[in-house]
Structure formats: structure tokens, C-alpha cells
């Protein structure tokens, strides 16, 4: 693996000023994401995992420390369209067909002929043949796959995913996890993935970042060494359970299980 840093955060912090006083969403975060990594941020709600992802995406500004995305500031990286972002909900535009939704970023980038890219990225998420459908004609899982194709259509090296499968049922989620893993293996993207599901994080990731709240900070970084070609079956192996246990230990150390 070439250890070229895609994301480099040093002593990063973000404090929201609210009427009830400051909220320390992130504090002293140090993180390196290398090219080709599949990184998961896991932790209870309020631990700053989504905030950290939004700082990387320049949807929030850090109030302290430094962060670089592709050796640029997050703002410059956003202007260079260096990443694709998948939200918690599909956030498809209901008045656009599937292909027009996937083509939206390409229209904004001013691409003259986006049809080939749209076709290719819909194939990647197994949605060929659904080009002319409107979002409401698709299931929740399919809608989220459209939104993944839309993020991939930008052809970024970095894919940022904020609990993309959080709203889906477990069976659909398992299937999409498997597909996402295949996609990652096929495209060699760097993925930063936010989740609150331990099995999801352990199954998908090459590196798990365990976070804890008040203030939002990183407790542990766990490298997993599962084979690239893995199926959902590995979730029953002792190695898998060992990693899952260590994640749980990290969460406990961060007092995430306390009221």
C-alpha cells in the first residue's frame, strides 16, 4: 500500500457556540487517512463523527488545528470536486429521473456529454435499466444506491459516506454492505464511512476510528486485516469477533455506554 495521505488532520477541534454555551463537537483530533483506505468512524450520537466528516467535506469549518484533504484545504478540495458525498438519506431530487439525478453533478460541472458516465456509474451500483424511473418508484435501498452512483459520477478519489445505510432494514443493509465492499475493491477509492453499527464498521473497514462524545474525540484506531475478498460469513469468525470486541472496549473506555 502506498502510504500517501488523502486526509491529514492535526489537533483538529470544532466548537459550536450555542445559546446554552459552547459545544465541543471535536477536540484534539489527529487522523491520517491513506490512499485506498476504507475508514469507518464509529461512536454514539453526539461523538462528532458526522461533524468530522462534514469538516473534511468543507460543510463545517474547524475552529482549531489543521486539516488537509488531498494536500489542500477542505475548501480548495471542495472547489476541485475532490470528493463524492453520500448523505444519511438519498436526497434525490424527486422531479428528476434516476439518470438525471446521477447526472446532476455532471451538469453542474458543465460536462458536455455525461451519458456515458451516468451509464457506467449506474452499472456499478447494479441499477442499469432504471434510468427513466423517478425516485418514488424505487425502494429505499435502490434510492440510496442511486445516490451512491451520483457521488461516484463526480469520479472522485475520495468517497465520504455519512451513515448511508442507517435508515435501511438489516437485510437490505447487509446486501448493500457486500456491494459496497465489491465497489471499493473494484474502484480502489478511498472511503470514509460514518456508522453507529459495530458489525457494519468491522465488516467494511480497513481501519476503524472509535470516537466518544463530550467532547467529541478519537479513542482508538483499529486496523483490521480481513482479506479483500470477503463475504458476510466472516462476521462469525473469531478474528471478526475479536475486532468487534475491541471496538466495544473502545466505546466503553470513552464512556459511551453510560448515561
Amino acid at each position, binding site marked *: 500500500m502506498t502510504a500517501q495521505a488523502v486526509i491529514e488532520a492535526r489537533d483538529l477541534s470544532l466548537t459550536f457556540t450555542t445559546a446554552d454555551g459552547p459545544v465541543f463537537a471535536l477536540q484534539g483530533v489527529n487522523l491520517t487517512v491513506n490512499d485506498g483506505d476504507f475508514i469507518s468512524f464509529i461512536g454514539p450520537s453526539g461523538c462528532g463523527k458526522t461533524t468530522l466528516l462534514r469538516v473534511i467535506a468543507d460543510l463545517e469549518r474547524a475552529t482549531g488545528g489543521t486539516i488537509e484533504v488531498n494536500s489542500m484545504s477542505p475548501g480548495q478540495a471542495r472547489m476541485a470536486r475532490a*470528493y463524492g458525498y453520500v448523505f444519511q*438519506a438519498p436526497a434525490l431530487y424527486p422531479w428528476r429521473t434516476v439518470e438525471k439525478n446521477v447526472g446532476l453533478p455532471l451538469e453542474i460541472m458543465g460536462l458536455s456529454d455525461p451519458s456515458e458516465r451516468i451509464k457506467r456509474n449506474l452499472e456499478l451500483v447494479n441499477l442499469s435499466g432504471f434510468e427513466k424511473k423517478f425516485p418514488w418508484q424505487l425502494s429505499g435501498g435502490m434510492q440510496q444506491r442511486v445516490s451512491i452512483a451520483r457521488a461516484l459520477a463526480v469520479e472522485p478519489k475520495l468517497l465520504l459516506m455519512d451513515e448511508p445505510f442507517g435508515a435501511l432494514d438489516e437485510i437490505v443493509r447487509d446486501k448493500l454492505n457486500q456491494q459496497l465492499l465489491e465497489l471499493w475493491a473494484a474502484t480502489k477509492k478511498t472511503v470514509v464511512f460514518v456508522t453507529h453499527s459495530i458489525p457494519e464498521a468491522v465488516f467494511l473497514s480497513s481501519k476503524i476510528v472509535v470516537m466518544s462524545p463530550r467532547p467529541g474525540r478519537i479513542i482508538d484506531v483499529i486496523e483490521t486485516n480481513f482479506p479483500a475478498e470477503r463475504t458476510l460469513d466472516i462476521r462469525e469468525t473469531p478474528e471478526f469477533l475479536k475486532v468487534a470486541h475491541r471496538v466495544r472496549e473502545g466505546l466503553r473506555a470513552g464512556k459511551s455506554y453510560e448515561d
Partner: protein
Amino acid sequence: MKTSSGIRGGSVVPVTVIVLLILVAWYIAAIFMNTVVAQPRIDAAGGGFSNTLSISWGLERPIIPAPHQVVQEIWMTAATVAPWETKSLVYHVWVTLSSTLLGFALGTLLGIALAIAIVHVKLLNKSLMPWIIASQTIPILAIAPMIIVVLGSLGLTGLLPKSIISMYLCFFPVTIGMVKGLTSPDPMQLDLMRTYYASTEQVLWKLRFPASLPFLFASLKVAIAIALTGAIVGELPTGAQAGIGARMLTGSYYGQTVQIWAALVAASVVAAGLVYGVGGVERLVGRRLGSQA
């Protein structure tokens, strides 16, 4: 002046029943309300039930004309006269309709432009909105003559001053609806645009505007009906020679109540048609944009 989204299968019976009830009530009311004028004649004719009906429903200048008298008047002035003659109701409807449509178009454009400005410039929301609301608290009857006179002194007569009054009335619901509609996209849909580094115009045309269309059409239905009201009101204070308003005015000068009612009915039919037309365009646009309905 109001209409629902149209007559669909299954609603024929209730609609017919309501229409019949209104007609019955109207005929009965006509007997009692015309008593003042009709009673001496009924007595002179020897009284009796059949005389009561035939006289109170057949007066030349009734207080309330019977429905068939209105229908007859509409038929006589719409179907038996060439549409370009000043006696033709069609001619008068067209005069009012043309200024209604021009005013509606101007009002819609003004309404959308104001909404876009208000949504994009925070300061305008605070500074402009009170004026927009205040503008609608002024009775249109009070300022309509002034608008006509001021524009007339600038050499603008005929269609445009009336359209300006329509515009003045109908930009308001468009602005209110569009401000709501343009701000209706949720934070996630807006964040998505931010991740694409989309320009303000791109966000407007690819997100805010399509998202606002349901709000726009709801507003347009209100706007087009009051644009017609505005055009009619615009005809009243100026002693206009043509238009539905002029028709009502001359009717009231000469006590031609049947003519006034015919003009009233014509106005409500036109209003219903216009609102229905906006609904039709809405359905067409909705189908194009994947609406589930």
C-alpha cells in the same frame, strides 16, 4: 369565483345536486325579493299562484332576475351578436380577459422576481416584506382611480393601466408562495449542491425553482382569480367603455339588473375557466416532473 380541481368521475351526482339546490333557492328568493316591484302587477292581473310566478320571474327590471332570465340575456348578448360589436358580451369578456392575462403575467413575473430577491438577500426579507404586506392592506378601490389617473397623465391608457391594477393585486400571493417554495429544499438537498461547488444560479435553477413549483401553482390559482377581480375593478372608476366592469357599470346606471347579473355570471365562468386552466398546466408540468398524482 372559486372552483375545485374539476369535475371528475363520481362527482357528477353531488355537483348536480348542489347546482339544482342553488337554482331552487334562487327561484324562490326571486319571488320574495321582487315582491316590491311585482306585487302591484300581480294584484292587477288578478293574483293567484301562476301569475305570481310568471310576473315575478319575468320582470324587465327585477331586483333579482330569475336564472333563466340571466341565461337568456347571456344567450342574446353572446350568441346572437357579432363578437366585435359593443353589444356583445363576448367582446366585453375579451376586453377584461386580455387585461387580466397581461396583468397576471406581469404580476407573476414581479412576484417571482421579488421572491428570488427576498430569498437571496437577507436584508430584503426584513426591509421589503413589510412594504409588500402593507401594499395589500390598501383597498384597491381607493387606489385604482389614482393609478388610472397617474398613468393616464403619463400617456398610458387602455389595457395597461387596468393590467397594472391586476398586477398589483396578484403579485402578492405569488411572492408569498414563492418565498416559501424557494426555501422549501431541505438542508441535505442544499448541502449536496455545496459539495458540488454549485453557483447560486445553479442552486436556484436546479434546486430551488423546481422545488417551488407546487407552491407556485397554488399561488397562481389565487393570483389569476384576483387578477380578474383587479381588471374588473380597474374598469369601474374610470367609466370604461368596454369590459365586464363597464357592463356592470352601465347596467347599474340604467337599472338593467339582468345585464349586471349576466356580467357577474360571465365573470365567474371566466374565473373558473382560468383557475381550471392553471390546474391543467400544473398537471402537465407535474407529469413531466414525475409527480405521483
